Protein backbone atom coordinates (compact mmCIF):
# COMPACT_ATOMS: atom_id res chain seq x y z
CA UNK A 1 0.00 0.00 0.00
CA UNK A 2 1.18 3.50 -0.95
CA UNK A 3 -0.37 6.90 -0.65
CA UNK A 4 0.25 9.52 -3.32
CA UNK A 5 -0.34 13.08 -2.17
CA UNK A 6 -0.66 15.78 -4.80
CA UNK A 7 0.75 19.15 -3.75
CA UNK A 8 1.06 22.49 -5.49
CA UNK A 9 3.24 25.48 -4.85
CA UNK A 10 1.09 28.60 -5.10
CA UNK A 11 1.50 32.34 -4.67
CA UNK A 12 0.23 33.41 -1.27
CA UNK A 13 -2.94 35.21 -2.34
CA UNK A 14 -3.87 35.94 1.26
CA UNK A 15 -0.96 38.38 1.54
CA UNK A 16 -0.21 41.45 -0.49
CA UNK A 17 -0.80 40.89 -4.20
CA UNK A 18 0.59 43.06 -6.96
CA UNK A 19 -1.04 43.23 -10.37
CA UNK A 20 0.95 44.30 -13.45
CA UNK A 21 -0.39 47.18 -15.55
CA UNK A 22 -1.51 44.72 -18.26
CA UNK A 23 -3.83 42.95 -15.82
CA UNK A 24 -1.61 39.93 -15.18
CA UNK A 25 -0.38 38.90 -11.78
CA UNK A 26 3.06 39.95 -10.61
CA UNK A 27 4.05 36.55 -9.25
CA UNK A 28 7.58 37.70 -8.41
CA UNK A 29 6.12 40.03 -5.79
CA UNK A 30 4.40 37.23 -3.90
CA UNK A 31 5.62 34.61 -1.47
CA UNK A 32 5.43 30.99 -2.68
CA UNK A 33 3.74 28.63 -0.26
CA UNK A 34 2.40 25.09 -0.22
CA UNK A 35 -1.28 25.23 -1.11
CA UNK A 36 -3.19 25.18 2.22
CA UNK A 37 -5.66 22.38 1.33
CA UNK A 38 -2.71 20.26 0.16
CA UNK A 39 -1.21 20.53 3.63
CA UNK A 40 -4.38 18.84 4.91
CA UNK A 41 -3.88 16.15 2.26
CA UNK A 42 -0.30 15.59 3.44
CA UNK A 43 -1.48 15.37 7.04
CA UNK A 44 -4.18 12.85 6.11
CA UNK A 45 -1.60 10.70 4.32
CA UNK A 46 0.85 10.86 7.23
CA UNK A 47 -1.89 9.94 9.72
CA UNK A 48 -2.71 6.82 7.68
CA UNK A 49 1.01 6.06 7.34
CA UNK A 50 1.47 6.12 11.11
CA UNK A 51 -1.34 3.64 11.55
CA UNK A 52 -0.66 1.30 8.65
CA UNK A 53 3.03 1.76 7.90
CA UNK A 54 2.64 2.59 4.25
CA UNK A 55 4.83 4.71 1.99
CA UNK A 56 3.83 8.31 1.25
CA UNK A 57 4.85 9.76 -2.11
CA UNK A 58 4.37 13.51 -2.63
CA UNK A 59 3.85 14.47 -6.23
CA UNK A 60 3.81 17.93 -7.76
CA UNK A 61 3.89 19.59 -11.14
CA UNK A 62 5.59 22.93 -11.55
CA UNK A 63 8.84 24.80 -12.11
CA UNK A 64 12.11 23.59 -10.52
CA UNK A 65 11.62 25.93 -7.55
CA UNK A 66 8.79 23.67 -6.36
CA UNK A 67 11.53 21.33 -5.08
CA UNK A 68 11.79 23.57 -2.02
CA UNK A 69 8.17 22.83 -1.20
CA UNK A 70 8.65 19.10 -1.78
CA UNK A 71 11.61 19.09 0.65
CA UNK A 72 9.30 20.61 3.24
CA UNK A 73 6.73 17.88 2.65
CA UNK A 74 9.51 15.30 3.03
CA UNK A 75 10.51 17.04 6.27
CA UNK A 76 6.93 16.68 7.50
CA UNK A 77 7.27 12.93 7.03
CA UNK A 78 6.62 11.94 3.42
CA UNK A 79 9.01 9.23 2.17
CA UNK A 80 9.57 10.21 -1.43
CA UNK A 81 8.81 13.09 -3.75
CA UNK A 82 8.30 13.43 -7.48
CA UNK A 83 8.39 16.73 -9.34
CA UNK A 84 6.94 16.77 -12.84
CA UNK A 85 8.72 19.59 -14.56
CA UNK A 86 9.26 20.39 -18.22
CA UNK A 87 8.69 23.26 -20.59
CA UNK A 88 6.32 21.01 -22.56
CA UNK A 89 3.97 20.83 -19.54
CA UNK A 90 3.86 24.61 -19.03
CA UNK A 91 0.64 26.56 -19.50
CA UNK A 92 -1.56 23.56 -18.71
CA UNK A 93 -5.18 24.07 -17.67
CA UNK A 94 -6.85 21.61 -15.29
CA UNK A 95 -7.48 19.07 -18.05
CA UNK A 96 -3.86 18.98 -19.25
CA UNK A 97 -2.52 19.13 -15.68
CA UNK A 98 -4.55 16.15 -14.53
CA UNK A 99 -3.62 14.24 -17.68
CA UNK A 100 0.07 14.75 -16.89
CA UNK A 101 -0.16 14.01 -13.16
CA UNK A 102 -2.20 10.87 -13.91
CA UNK A 103 0.52 9.73 -16.32
CA UNK A 104 3.19 10.35 -13.67
CA UNK A 105 1.31 8.37 -11.01
CA UNK A 106 0.79 5.53 -13.45
CA UNK A 107 4.46 5.68 -14.45
CA UNK A 108 5.49 5.43 -10.80
CA UNK A 109 3.13 2.47 -10.42
CA UNK A 110 -0.36 2.42 -8.93
CA UNK A 111 -1.25 -0.76 -7.06
CA UNK A 112 -4.58 -2.16 -5.93
CA UNK A 113 -4.29 -0.96 -2.32
CA UNK A 114 -3.01 2.52 -3.17
CA UNK A 115 -4.75 5.80 -2.38
CA UNK A 116 -4.33 9.23 -3.95
CA UNK A 117 -5.10 12.18 -1.67
CA UNK A 118 -5.46 15.73 -3.00
CA UNK A 119 -6.45 19.03 -1.47
CA UNK A 120 -9.90 20.22 -2.43
CA UNK A 121 -8.64 23.22 -4.40
CA UNK A 122 -5.64 25.51 -4.82
CA UNK A 123 -5.83 29.15 -3.74
CA UNK A 124 -4.49 30.51 -7.05
CA UNK A 125 -7.16 29.06 -9.31
CA UNK A 126 -9.79 27.83 -6.82
CA UNK A 127 -11.05 25.33 -9.42
CA UNK A 128 -11.28 22.06 -7.41
CA UNK A 129 -11.05 20.27 -10.75
CA UNK A 130 -7.64 18.60 -10.85
CA UNK A 131 -8.41 15.92 -8.23
CA UNK A 132 -11.56 14.57 -9.90
CA UNK A 133 -9.92 14.82 -13.33
CA UNK A 134 -6.88 12.78 -12.20
CA UNK A 135 -9.33 10.14 -10.94
CA UNK A 136 -11.13 10.10 -14.29
CA UNK A 137 -7.88 9.83 -16.26
CA UNK A 138 -6.79 6.88 -14.11
CA UNK A 139 -10.28 5.33 -14.17
CA UNK A 140 -10.53 5.44 -10.36
CA UNK A 141 -13.48 6.07 -8.08
CA UNK A 142 -13.31 9.40 -6.25
CA UNK A 143 -14.67 10.90 -3.07
CA UNK A 144 -14.31 14.67 -2.85
CA UNK A 145 -14.79 17.08 0.08
CA UNK A 146 -13.61 14.53 2.65
CA UNK A 147 -14.15 15.69 6.23
CA UNK A 148 -13.15 12.35 7.77
CA UNK A 149 -11.26 9.34 6.41
CA UNK A 150 -11.27 5.93 8.08
CA UNK A 151 -9.62 2.78 6.81
CA UNK A 152 -11.94 -0.14 7.58
CA UNK A 153 -9.38 -2.68 6.37
CA UNK A 154 -6.60 -2.51 3.80
CA UNK A 155 -8.28 -1.84 0.49
CA UNK A 156 -11.47 -0.30 1.89
CA UNK A 157 -12.15 3.19 3.21
CA UNK A 158 -15.12 4.94 4.74
CA UNK A 159 -15.20 8.66 4.01
CA UNK A 160 -17.43 11.38 5.39
CA UNK A 161 -18.12 13.49 2.32
CA UNK A 162 -19.29 16.96 3.28
CA UNK A 163 -22.31 18.60 1.67
CA UNK A 164 -23.43 22.20 2.19
CA UNK A 165 -26.15 21.07 4.58
CA UNK A 166 -24.79 17.86 6.06
CA UNK A 167 -22.74 14.91 4.85
CA UNK A 168 -22.77 11.53 3.15
CA UNK A 169 -20.99 8.50 4.50
CA UNK A 170 -19.36 6.75 1.55
CA UNK A 171 -17.58 3.41 1.33
CA UNK A 172 -15.00 3.03 -1.40
CA UNK A 173 -12.48 0.40 -2.46
CA UNK A 174 -8.88 1.19 -3.31
CA UNK A 175 -7.34 2.27 -5.57
CA UNK A 176 -9.23 5.54 -5.27
CA UNK A 177 -8.77 9.29 -5.09
CA UNK A 178 -9.91 11.46 -2.20
CA UNK A 179 -9.93 15.26 -2.04
CA UNK A 180 -9.94 16.80 1.41
CA UNK A 181 -11.10 20.02 3.00
CA UNK A 182 -9.36 22.06 5.66
CA UNK A 183 -11.69 20.88 8.42
CA UNK A 184 -10.29 17.34 8.01
CA UNK A 185 -7.28 17.89 10.27
CA UNK A 186 -4.59 20.27 11.49
CA UNK A 187 -1.39 19.86 9.46
CA UNK A 188 1.70 19.15 11.52
CA UNK A 189 4.87 21.18 11.46
CA UNK A 190 8.22 19.95 10.21
CA UNK A 191 10.40 18.53 12.98
CA UNK A 192 14.08 19.35 13.44
CA UNK A 193 14.91 15.73 12.70
CA UNK A 194 12.63 15.88 9.67
CA UNK A 195 14.43 18.87 8.22
CA UNK A 196 17.71 16.96 8.52
CA UNK A 197 16.39 13.71 7.11
CA UNK A 198 14.55 15.25 4.17
CA UNK A 199 17.82 15.73 2.28
CA UNK A 200 18.45 11.96 2.26
CA UNK A 201 15.02 11.10 0.92
CA UNK A 202 14.56 10.60 -2.83
CA UNK A 203 13.26 13.57 -4.82
CA UNK A 204 12.95 12.54 -8.45
CA UNK A 205 12.26 14.86 -11.37
CA UNK A 206 10.05 13.53 -14.16
CA UNK A 207 10.76 15.54 -17.28
CA UNK A 208 9.19 15.22 -20.71
CA UNK A 209 11.60 12.38 -21.61
CA UNK A 210 10.44 10.36 -18.60
CA UNK A 211 6.76 10.54 -19.52
CA UNK A 212 6.66 11.05 -23.28
CA UNK A 213 5.94 7.41 -24.11
CA UNK A 214 3.06 7.11 -21.66
CA UNK A 215 -0.28 6.66 -23.46
CA UNK A 216 -1.78 9.70 -21.70
CA UNK A 217 1.02 11.98 -22.88
CA UNK A 218 0.43 13.37 -26.34
CA UNK A 219 1.16 16.86 -27.69
CA UNK A 220 -2.60 17.30 -28.14
CA UNK A 221 -3.37 16.64 -24.46
CA UNK A 222 -0.57 18.36 -22.52
CA UNK A 223 0.72 21.85 -21.92
CA UNK A 224 -0.74 25.03 -23.32
CA UNK A 225 -1.51 23.44 -26.70
CA UNK A 226 -3.30 20.50 -25.13
CA UNK A 227 -5.43 22.64 -22.84
CA UNK A 228 -9.10 22.85 -23.88
CA UNK A 229 -9.53 26.19 -22.10
CA UNK A 230 -7.62 29.42 -22.70
CA UNK A 231 -7.55 32.74 -20.95
CA UNK A 232 -9.29 35.26 -23.23
CA UNK A 233 -8.87 38.36 -21.05
CA UNK A 234 -7.88 39.08 -17.48
CA UNK A 235 -8.57 42.23 -15.55
CA UNK A 236 -8.94 43.75 -12.12
CA UNK A 237 -12.35 44.60 -10.69
CA UNK A 238 -13.00 48.37 -10.75
CA UNK A 239 -12.11 50.28 -7.62
CA UNK A 240 -15.15 51.87 -6.07
CA UNK A 241 -14.61 55.21 -4.37
CA UNK A 242 -15.34 55.76 -0.71
CA UNK A 243 -18.92 56.63 0.15
CA UNK A 244 -20.27 58.97 2.79
CA UNK A 245 -18.38 58.90 6.05
CA UNK A 246 -20.67 59.57 9.00
CA UNK A 247 -19.27 61.78 11.76
CA UNK A 248 -17.99 59.85 14.75
CA UNK A 249 -19.37 56.70 16.34
CA UNK A 250 -21.78 58.36 18.75
CA UNK A 251 -25.53 58.74 18.99
CA UNK A 252 -25.68 61.25 16.15
CA UNK A 253 -24.08 58.86 13.70
CA UNK A 254 -26.43 56.14 14.92
CA UNK A 255 -29.50 58.35 14.47
CA UNK A 256 -28.25 59.36 11.04
CA UNK A 257 -28.02 55.75 9.89
CA UNK A 258 -31.42 54.89 11.41
CA UNK A 259 -32.86 57.84 9.43
CA UNK A 260 -31.24 56.53 6.23
CA UNK A 261 -32.67 53.06 6.91
CA UNK A 262 -36.08 54.58 7.42
CA UNK A 263 -35.87 56.59 4.18
CA UNK A 264 -34.77 53.56 2.23
CA UNK A 265 -37.54 51.47 3.80
CA UNK A 266 -35.04 49.09 5.34
CA UNK A 267 -37.01 49.51 8.57
Amino acid sequence: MKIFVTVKQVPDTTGKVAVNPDGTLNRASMAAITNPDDMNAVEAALTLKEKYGCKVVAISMGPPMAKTMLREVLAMGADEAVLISAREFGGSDTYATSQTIAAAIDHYGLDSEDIIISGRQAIDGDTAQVGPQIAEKLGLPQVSYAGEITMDEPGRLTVRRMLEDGYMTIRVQTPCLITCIKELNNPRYMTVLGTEECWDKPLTVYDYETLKDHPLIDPSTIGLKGSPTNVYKSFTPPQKGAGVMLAGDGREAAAELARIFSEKHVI
Partner: protein
Amino acid sequence: MAVNYNSEDIASFRNVWVFCEQREGRMMPTTFELISEGRKLADELGCELAGILLGDDVDGIAAEIGGYGADKVYVYNSPLLGTYTTDAYTKVICDAVEEFRPEVMLFGASNIGRDLAPRCAARLHTGLCADCTHLDIDLQGYLDFLRSGSSLDVDGMNFESRQFDVNTTLKMTRPAFGGHLMATIVCPRFRPAMASVRPGVMARRPFDQAGADGIEVLHPGFSLNRDDIRTEVVEVVKAARKLVDLIGADYIVSVGRGIASDVERGIALAQELAQELGGVVGASRAVTDAGWLSADHQVGQTGKTVHPKVYIALGISGAIQHKAGMQDSECVIAVNKNEGAPIFEGADYGIVGDLFKYVPLLIEEIRKAKAAK
Protein backbone atom coordinates in the same frame (compact mmCIF):
# COMPACT_ATOMS: atom_id res chain seq x y z
CA MET B 1 -17.21 6.48 -25.81
CA ALA B 2 -19.72 6.27 -28.64
CA VAL B 3 -18.37 5.67 -32.08
CA ASN B 4 -18.28 8.87 -34.14
CA TYR B 5 -18.31 11.07 -31.06
CA ASN B 6 -15.72 13.76 -31.48
CA SER B 7 -15.67 16.76 -29.14
CA GLU B 8 -13.61 18.69 -31.70
CA ASP B 9 -16.37 18.54 -34.33
CA ILE B 10 -17.87 21.71 -32.94
CA ALA B 11 -20.34 22.24 -35.79
CA SER B 12 -22.22 19.08 -34.72
CA PHE B 13 -23.09 20.54 -31.29
CA ARG B 14 -26.13 22.69 -30.66
CA ASN B 15 -28.32 23.96 -27.76
CA VAL B 16 -27.70 24.93 -24.14
CA TRP B 17 -28.05 22.42 -21.31
CA VAL B 18 -28.33 22.89 -17.59
CA PHE B 19 -27.69 20.12 -15.08
CA CYS B 20 -30.70 20.28 -12.75
CA GLU B 21 -29.46 19.25 -9.35
CA GLN B 22 -31.99 17.68 -6.99
CA ARG B 23 -31.43 16.33 -3.52
CA GLU B 24 -33.92 13.98 -1.92
CA GLY B 25 -36.34 14.72 -4.74
CA ARG B 26 -36.27 18.49 -4.24
CA MET B 27 -34.80 20.82 -6.84
CA MET B 28 -31.81 22.83 -5.60
CA PRO B 29 -32.67 26.56 -5.92
CA THR B 30 -29.49 27.25 -7.91
CA THR B 31 -31.02 25.24 -10.75
CA PHE B 32 -33.55 28.04 -11.33
CA GLU B 33 -30.76 30.63 -11.45
CA LEU B 34 -28.91 28.52 -14.00
CA ILE B 35 -32.02 28.01 -16.13
CA SER B 36 -32.63 31.77 -16.10
CA GLU B 37 -29.05 32.44 -17.19
CA GLY B 38 -29.16 29.56 -19.69
CA ARG B 39 -32.22 31.20 -21.31
CA LYS B 40 -30.17 34.33 -21.97
CA LEU B 41 -27.35 32.30 -23.54
CA ALA B 42 -29.75 30.23 -25.65
CA ASP B 43 -31.45 33.39 -26.93
CA GLU B 44 -28.09 34.87 -27.89
CA LEU B 45 -27.18 31.65 -29.70
CA GLY B 46 -30.64 31.30 -31.21
CA CYS B 47 -31.11 27.76 -29.91
CA GLU B 48 -33.08 25.69 -27.40
CA LEU B 49 -32.53 25.49 -23.65
CA ALA B 50 -32.88 22.09 -22.03
CA GLY B 51 -32.51 20.82 -18.49
CA ILE B 52 -31.12 17.38 -17.69
CA LEU B 53 -32.56 15.92 -14.51
CA LEU B 54 -31.40 12.70 -12.86
CA GLY B 55 -33.11 11.06 -9.92
CA ASP B 56 -35.46 8.36 -8.75
CA ASP B 57 -39.02 9.11 -9.83
CA VAL B 58 -38.47 12.86 -10.25
CA ASP B 59 -41.00 13.62 -13.02
CA GLY B 60 -43.00 15.64 -10.50
CA ILE B 61 -40.31 18.33 -10.23
CA ALA B 62 -39.30 18.36 -13.90
CA ALA B 63 -41.76 20.87 -15.36
CA GLU B 64 -41.03 23.72 -12.94
CA ILE B 65 -37.84 24.73 -14.80
CA GLY B 66 -40.05 25.56 -17.79
CA GLY B 67 -41.33 28.46 -15.71
CA TYR B 68 -37.82 29.91 -15.71
CA GLY B 69 -37.24 29.54 -19.43
CA ALA B 70 -36.38 25.92 -20.30
CA ASP B 71 -37.88 24.56 -23.54
CA LYS B 72 -37.25 20.91 -22.71
CA VAL B 73 -36.23 18.66 -19.89
CA TYR B 74 -34.53 15.30 -20.29
CA VAL B 75 -35.46 13.14 -17.31
CA TYR B 76 -33.49 10.04 -16.29
CA ASN B 77 -35.22 8.00 -13.58
CA SER B 78 -33.64 5.06 -11.81
CA PRO B 79 -33.37 3.80 -8.23
CA LEU B 80 -29.60 3.99 -8.88
CA LEU B 81 -29.89 7.77 -9.41
CA GLY B 82 -31.90 8.64 -6.29
CA THR B 83 -28.82 9.64 -4.30
CA TYR B 84 -25.88 11.27 -6.04
CA THR B 85 -22.88 9.13 -6.88
CA THR B 86 -20.04 10.35 -9.06
CA ASP B 87 -19.95 7.20 -11.17
CA ALA B 88 -23.67 6.92 -11.97
CA TYR B 89 -24.22 10.60 -12.69
CA THR B 90 -21.06 10.93 -14.79
CA LYS B 91 -22.03 7.93 -16.90
CA VAL B 92 -25.61 8.99 -17.57
CA ILE B 93 -24.67 12.61 -18.31
CA CYS B 94 -21.73 11.77 -20.57
CA ASP B 95 -23.81 9.23 -22.50
CA ALA B 96 -26.57 11.84 -22.91
CA VAL B 97 -24.12 14.51 -24.07
CA GLU B 98 -22.74 12.11 -26.65
CA GLU B 99 -26.24 11.35 -27.86
CA PHE B 100 -27.67 14.88 -27.98
CA ARG B 101 -24.51 17.04 -28.28
CA PRO B 102 -25.26 20.32 -26.52
CA GLU B 103 -22.77 23.09 -27.26
CA VAL B 104 -22.95 24.72 -23.82
CA MET B 105 -23.47 22.98 -20.51
CA LEU B 106 -23.90 24.61 -17.09
CA PHE B 107 -23.62 23.05 -13.62
CA GLY B 108 -24.24 24.71 -10.26
CA ALA B 109 -20.94 25.02 -8.40
CA SER B 110 -22.27 23.17 -5.36
CA ASN B 111 -20.24 20.47 -3.58
CA ILE B 112 -21.93 18.01 -5.90
CA GLY B 113 -21.64 20.09 -9.09
CA ARG B 114 -17.94 20.56 -8.46
CA ASP B 115 -17.49 16.81 -8.03
CA LEU B 116 -19.44 15.95 -11.16
CA ALA B 117 -18.55 18.63 -13.72
CA PRO B 118 -14.75 18.06 -13.81
CA ARG B 119 -15.27 14.33 -14.09
CA CYS B 120 -17.63 14.81 -17.07
CA ALA B 121 -15.31 17.33 -18.76
CA ALA B 122 -12.36 14.95 -18.44
CA ARG B 123 -14.35 12.03 -19.86
CA LEU B 124 -15.79 14.06 -22.75
CA HIS B 125 -12.44 15.68 -23.54
CA THR B 126 -13.60 19.25 -23.27
CA GLY B 127 -12.95 22.41 -21.26
CA LEU B 128 -14.58 23.41 -18.00
CA CYS B 129 -14.39 26.74 -16.24
CA ALA B 130 -14.97 26.57 -12.48
CA ASP B 131 -17.18 28.71 -10.30
CA CYS B 132 -18.11 31.33 -12.90
CA THR B 133 -19.74 34.60 -11.87
CA HIS B 134 -20.56 35.99 -15.33
CA LEU B 135 -21.33 34.42 -18.72
CA ASP B 136 -21.67 35.95 -22.18
CA ILE B 137 -22.19 34.80 -25.74
CA ASP B 138 -22.66 38.12 -27.61
CA LEU B 139 -19.46 40.15 -27.76
CA GLN B 140 -21.39 43.39 -27.31
CA GLY B 141 -22.86 42.21 -24.02
CA TYR B 142 -19.40 41.17 -22.85
CA LEU B 143 -17.96 44.58 -23.73
CA ASP B 144 -20.77 46.30 -21.82
CA PHE B 145 -20.01 44.07 -18.85
CA LEU B 146 -16.32 45.01 -19.01
CA ARG B 147 -17.14 48.72 -19.23
CA SER B 148 -18.89 48.60 -15.87
CA GLY B 149 -17.14 45.62 -14.30
CA SER B 150 -13.48 46.14 -15.08
CA SER B 151 -10.76 48.75 -15.17
CA LEU B 152 -9.89 47.85 -18.79
CA ASP B 153 -9.76 50.46 -21.54
CA VAL B 154 -12.37 48.53 -23.52
CA ASP B 155 -12.48 50.81 -26.56
CA GLY B 156 -8.72 50.77 -27.00
CA MET B 157 -8.44 46.97 -26.97
CA ASN B 158 -8.63 44.23 -29.54
CA PHE B 159 -11.22 41.53 -28.87
CA GLU B 160 -10.99 39.67 -32.17
CA SER B 161 -9.40 36.25 -32.36
CA ARG B 162 -8.10 34.20 -35.25
CA GLN B 163 -8.82 30.99 -33.36
CA PHE B 164 -12.55 31.32 -32.80
CA ASP B 165 -15.67 33.37 -33.47
CA VAL B 166 -15.72 35.87 -30.61
CA ASN B 167 -19.42 36.52 -31.15
CA THR B 168 -20.70 32.96 -30.70
CA THR B 169 -18.19 31.47 -28.25
CA LEU B 170 -19.12 31.26 -24.58
CA LYS B 171 -17.07 33.71 -22.52
CA MET B 172 -16.81 32.53 -18.91
CA THR B 173 -15.68 35.04 -16.30
CA ARG B 174 -14.58 34.17 -12.79
CA PRO B 175 -12.43 35.50 -9.97
CA ALA B 176 -8.92 34.07 -9.65
CA PHE B 177 -6.04 34.54 -7.24
CA GLY B 178 -8.36 34.98 -4.32
CA GLY B 179 -10.38 37.65 -6.14
CA HIS B 180 -7.42 39.89 -6.95
CA LEU B 181 -7.91 39.18 -10.61
CA MET B 182 -10.85 38.36 -12.86
CA ALA B 183 -10.26 36.04 -15.77
CA THR B 184 -12.45 35.40 -18.81
CA ILE B 185 -11.97 31.86 -20.08
CA VAL B 186 -12.95 30.40 -23.44
CA CYS B 187 -13.12 26.83 -24.71
CA PRO B 188 -12.63 27.46 -28.42
CA ARG B 189 -11.80 24.03 -29.85
CA PHE B 190 -14.05 21.58 -28.01
CA ARG B 191 -17.73 21.16 -27.16
CA PRO B 192 -19.66 21.34 -25.01
CA ALA B 193 -18.13 24.43 -23.44
CA MET B 194 -18.74 23.65 -19.78
CA ALA B 195 -19.05 25.98 -16.82
CA SER B 196 -19.83 25.55 -13.17
CA VAL B 197 -21.63 28.62 -11.87
CA ARG B 198 -21.41 30.09 -8.41
CA PRO B 199 -24.69 29.72 -6.48
CA GLY B 200 -26.46 32.99 -5.73
CA VAL B 201 -24.81 35.01 -8.49
CA MET B 202 -27.16 34.69 -11.48
CA ALA B 203 -30.53 36.39 -11.17
CA ARG B 204 -33.62 34.19 -11.19
CA ARG B 205 -36.35 35.22 -13.66
CA PRO B 206 -39.92 35.67 -12.49
CA PHE B 207 -41.74 32.34 -12.62
CA ASP B 208 -44.00 31.95 -15.66
CA GLN B 209 -46.73 29.31 -15.33
CA ALA B 210 -47.27 29.12 -19.11
CA GLY B 211 -43.62 28.11 -19.53
CA ALA B 212 -43.98 25.36 -16.92
CA ASP B 213 -47.18 24.12 -18.62
CA GLY B 214 -45.60 24.15 -22.07
CA ILE B 215 -42.28 22.43 -21.34
CA GLU B 216 -41.53 19.27 -23.26
CA VAL B 217 -40.63 16.39 -20.92
CA LEU B 218 -38.53 13.63 -22.50
CA HIS B 219 -37.43 10.24 -21.20
CA PRO B 220 -34.57 9.02 -23.38
CA GLY B 221 -33.43 5.44 -22.99
CA PHE B 222 -30.19 4.88 -21.08
CA SER B 223 -28.12 2.12 -19.57
CA LEU B 224 -26.92 2.03 -15.98
CA ASN B 225 -26.06 -0.97 -13.85
CA ARG B 226 -25.17 -1.43 -10.21
CA ASP B 227 -21.68 -2.49 -11.34
CA ASP B 228 -21.12 0.95 -12.87
CA ILE B 229 -21.09 2.46 -9.37
CA ARG B 230 -17.93 1.84 -7.37
CA THR B 231 -18.87 3.74 -4.23
CA GLU B 232 -21.54 2.86 -1.71
CA VAL B 233 -23.48 5.64 0.00
CA VAL B 234 -24.08 4.26 3.49
CA GLU B 235 -26.10 7.23 4.75
CA VAL B 236 -26.98 10.84 4.00
CA VAL B 237 -27.14 13.00 7.10
CA LYS B 238 -28.65 16.47 7.32
CA ALA B 239 -26.96 18.98 9.60
CA ALA B 240 -28.74 18.97 12.95
CA ARG B 241 -28.64 22.75 13.12
CA LYS B 242 -30.46 24.86 10.56
CA LEU B 243 -27.84 26.55 8.39
CA VAL B 244 -27.87 30.26 7.81
CA ASP B 245 -29.30 31.27 4.42
CA LEU B 246 -26.87 34.00 3.39
CA ILE B 247 -27.56 33.71 -0.33
CA GLY B 248 -31.26 34.41 -0.03
CA ALA B 249 -30.94 37.13 2.64
CA ASP B 250 -31.89 40.77 2.01
CA TYR B 251 -30.06 42.05 5.08
CA ILE B 252 -26.74 40.74 6.34
CA VAL B 253 -24.78 41.86 9.38
CA SER B 254 -21.28 40.41 9.19
CA VAL B 255 -18.59 40.35 11.84
CA GLY B 256 -14.82 40.25 11.44
CA ARG B 257 -11.68 40.16 13.52
CA GLY B 258 -12.80 43.43 15.15
CA ILE B 259 -14.95 41.45 17.59
CA ALA B 260 -11.87 39.68 18.98
CA SER B 261 -11.80 41.66 22.24
CA ASP B 262 -15.23 40.26 23.19
CA VAL B 263 -16.32 37.60 20.73
CA GLU B 264 -19.51 36.61 22.52
CA ARG B 265 -20.78 40.17 22.84
CA GLY B 266 -19.74 41.01 19.27
CA ILE B 267 -21.77 38.12 17.89
CA ALA B 268 -24.69 38.89 20.18
CA LEU B 269 -24.74 42.50 18.95
CA ALA B 270 -24.63 41.38 15.32
CA GLN B 271 -27.50 38.98 15.95
CA GLU B 272 -29.54 41.65 17.67
CA LEU B 273 -28.97 44.13 14.84
CA ALA B 274 -29.72 41.47 12.22
CA GLN B 275 -32.94 40.58 14.02
CA GLU B 276 -33.94 44.25 14.12
CA LEU B 277 -33.51 44.40 10.32
CA GLY B 278 -35.01 40.99 9.63
CA GLY B 279 -31.66 39.72 8.42
CA VAL B 280 -28.99 37.15 9.18
CA VAL B 281 -25.43 37.10 10.50
CA GLY B 282 -22.44 36.61 8.23
CA ALA B 283 -18.74 36.51 8.95
CA SER B 284 -15.31 37.02 7.49
CA ARG B 285 -12.98 34.07 7.06
CA ALA B 286 -11.00 35.10 10.15
CA VAL B 287 -14.12 34.53 12.24
CA THR B 288 -15.03 31.13 10.81
CA ASP B 289 -11.40 29.96 10.81
CA ALA B 290 -11.20 30.86 14.50
CA GLY B 291 -14.35 28.83 15.09
CA TRP B 292 -16.29 31.82 16.48
CA LEU B 293 -19.03 31.11 13.95
CA SER B 294 -19.57 27.99 11.83
CA ALA B 295 -18.37 27.86 8.22
CA ASP B 296 -21.86 28.35 6.74
CA HIS B 297 -21.66 32.01 7.88
CA GLN B 298 -18.58 32.77 5.78
CA VAL B 299 -18.86 35.45 3.08
CA GLY B 300 -16.10 35.74 0.49
CA GLN B 301 -14.14 34.04 -2.24
CA THR B 302 -13.94 30.74 -0.38
CA GLY B 303 -17.29 31.28 1.32
CA LYS B 304 -20.53 32.52 -0.17
CA THR B 305 -21.22 35.28 -2.65
CA VAL B 306 -24.06 37.48 -1.44
CA HIS B 307 -25.93 40.45 -2.83
CA PRO B 308 -28.30 41.66 -0.15
CA LYS B 309 -30.06 45.01 -0.12
CA VAL B 310 -27.94 46.06 2.86
CA TYR B 311 -24.63 44.59 4.00
CA ILE B 312 -23.28 45.81 7.33
CA ALA B 313 -19.62 44.96 7.97
CA LEU B 314 -18.69 45.17 11.64
CA GLY B 315 -14.98 45.09 12.39
CA ILE B 316 -14.10 43.62 8.97
CA SER B 317 -10.95 45.05 7.42
CA GLY B 318 -12.11 44.20 3.90
CA ALA B 319 -9.50 41.88 2.43
CA ILE B 320 -10.06 41.33 -1.27
CA GLN B 321 -11.18 37.73 -0.57
CA HIS B 322 -14.01 39.11 1.53
CA LYS B 323 -14.93 41.84 -0.93
CA ALA B 324 -15.15 39.25 -3.72
CA GLY B 325 -18.15 37.80 -1.88
CA MET B 326 -20.06 40.99 -1.02
CA GLN B 327 -19.09 43.80 -3.38
CA ASP B 328 -22.34 43.52 -5.34
CA SER B 329 -24.47 44.30 -2.30
CA GLU B 330 -26.88 47.17 -3.02
CA CYS B 331 -25.78 49.17 0.00
CA VAL B 332 -22.66 48.56 2.10
CA ILE B 333 -22.19 50.01 5.57
CA ALA B 334 -18.82 49.61 7.24
CA VAL B 335 -17.97 50.08 10.90
CA ASN B 336 -14.26 49.87 11.63
CA LYS B 337 -11.82 51.41 14.08
CA ASN B 338 -9.17 51.86 11.43
CA GLU B 339 -10.06 54.62 9.02
CA GLY B 340 -7.57 53.22 6.50
CA ALA B 341 -9.36 49.83 6.37
CA PRO B 342 -10.00 48.75 2.75
CA ILE B 343 -13.63 47.99 3.60
CA PHE B 344 -14.34 51.74 3.44
CA GLU B 345 -13.44 51.76 -0.26
CA GLY B 346 -16.65 50.73 -1.91
CA ALA B 347 -18.77 51.27 1.21
CA ASP B 348 -21.78 53.54 0.79
CA TYR B 349 -21.65 54.65 4.42
CA GLY B 350 -18.67 54.48 6.73
CA ILE B 351 -18.40 54.81 10.48
CA VAL B 352 -14.91 55.08 11.90
CA GLY B 353 -15.19 53.92 15.45
CA ASP B 354 -15.80 51.22 18.01
CA LEU B 355 -18.46 48.70 17.02
CA PHE B 356 -19.10 47.81 20.67
CA LYS B 357 -20.06 51.43 21.28
CA TYR B 358 -21.80 52.16 17.97
CA VAL B 359 -23.96 49.08 17.42
CA PRO B 360 -25.95 49.32 20.70
CA LEU B 361 -26.67 52.98 19.89
CA LEU B 362 -27.70 52.05 16.36
CA ILE B 363 -30.07 49.36 17.65
CA GLU B 364 -31.65 51.91 20.01
CA GLU B 365 -32.05 54.48 17.25
CA ILE B 366 -33.57 51.91 14.90
CA ARG B 367 -36.12 50.97 17.57
CA LYS B 368 -36.93 54.64 18.10
CA ALA B 369 -37.33 55.23 14.37
CA LYS B 370 -39.61 52.19 14.09
CA ALA B 371 -41.69 53.35 17.04
CA ALA B 372 -42.05 56.81 15.46
CA LYS B 373 -43.56 55.34 12.29
